[in-house]
C-alpha cells in the first residue's frame, strides 16, 4: 500500500529544477587545466609535434631535391643535345653539305 509520503515524492520525481549555462562543464574543465598548468603542457606537446612534422618535411625536401635535380638535369642535357644538332643542321644549306661530302670522298 502506498503511503502519502510515497505519493508525494512520486509526484514530484527526482528531477532538479536547475540548469547550467551552455558549455559550462567544457569551459570549467579547460579553466582547471589552465590553473594546474596542464593546458600549456598540452600546447607545448602539440607545438613539439608540429615542429617534428616541419623538420621531417624539411629533411625530406633536402634529400629528394638533389635526386629530382639530377634526373631533370640529365633530361635537359639530352634535350639540349638534340636541339643543338637540329640547330647546326638548319644553319647549313644542302649544297654546302654536298660539297663537304664530295671533299671527304675525294680525300679518301
Amino acid at each position: 500500500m502506498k503511503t502519502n509520503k510515497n505519493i508525494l515524492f512520486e509526484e514530484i520525481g527526482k528531477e532538479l529544477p536547475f540548469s547550467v549555462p551552455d558549455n559550462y562543464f567544457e569551459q570549467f574543465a579547460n579553466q582547471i587545466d589552465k590553473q594546474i598548468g596542464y593546458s600549456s603542457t598540452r600546447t607545448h606537446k602539440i607545438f613539439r609535434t608540429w615542429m617534428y612534422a616541419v623538420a621531417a618535411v624539411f629533411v625530406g625536401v633536402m634529400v629528394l631535391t638533389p635526386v629530382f635535380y639530377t634526373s631533370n638535369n640529365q633530361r635537359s642535357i639530352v634535350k639540349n643535345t638534340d636541339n643543338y644538332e637540329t640547330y647546326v643542321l638548319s644553319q647549313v644549306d644542302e649544297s654546302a653539305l654536298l660539297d663537304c661530302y664530295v671533299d671527304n670522298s675525294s680525300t679518301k
Partner: protein
Amino acid sequence: MDPAEKDLQLQLSQPKKRAAAFSSLVRSYQERLYWHIRKMVLSHDDANDVLQNTFMKAWNGLDGFRGDSQVSTWLYRIATNETLTFLSNKRMRNLQSLDGDEDMMLQNLQADTYMNGTELQQKLQKAISTLPDKQRLVFNMKYFDDITYEQMENILGTSVGALKASYHYAVKKIEKFFSEED
C-alpha cells in the same frame, strides 16, 4: 581496489603524469560534484566557486592523499567540506549585514537565474531549504543521488544509524511543509 582505481592513483602520484591524470579526473567527476554542491548552495555562481575551490584543494593536496579511500570518496569529502564552509561563511556575512540570516537559502533560490522546472519541483526545493545543512546534505544524497548509507558514512564520517535517522526526520519535515502549504 579495482585495477582502474589503482592505475588512477598511480598516475596521480607520478609528477610527470599527474596533470594529465588530474585533468581527466576533473572531466569524470565535475558534473557529479557540481550537482552535489549546487543542491546545497542553490545558486549557480556559488556552485561554480565552490567547485573550483574543491578541485584546487584536491590538486594542492594530492601529496597528502594516501590512497586509503577511493579517489571519488576523497573528492566528495573535499566538496562537502568546501560547501559547508562556504555556507557557514555566507551566513556569517549575512549576520553582519543589515539583511540578517533570515531566509538566506530561500533568497539564494529566488535570486538564481538558472532555476526552472515545475512548480512542485520548486516547492520541494523550498521545503529542503528549511532543513539544517547536514540534514539537507543527507536528504539530497539519498533522495536525488541514491547514494547508499554505507557510501555516505565514508564521505560524511557519520554512522549509518545516524544517517538513517537524519533522512527520516528530513522526510517528515518536508511532508509537514507540503501539508501546511496546502
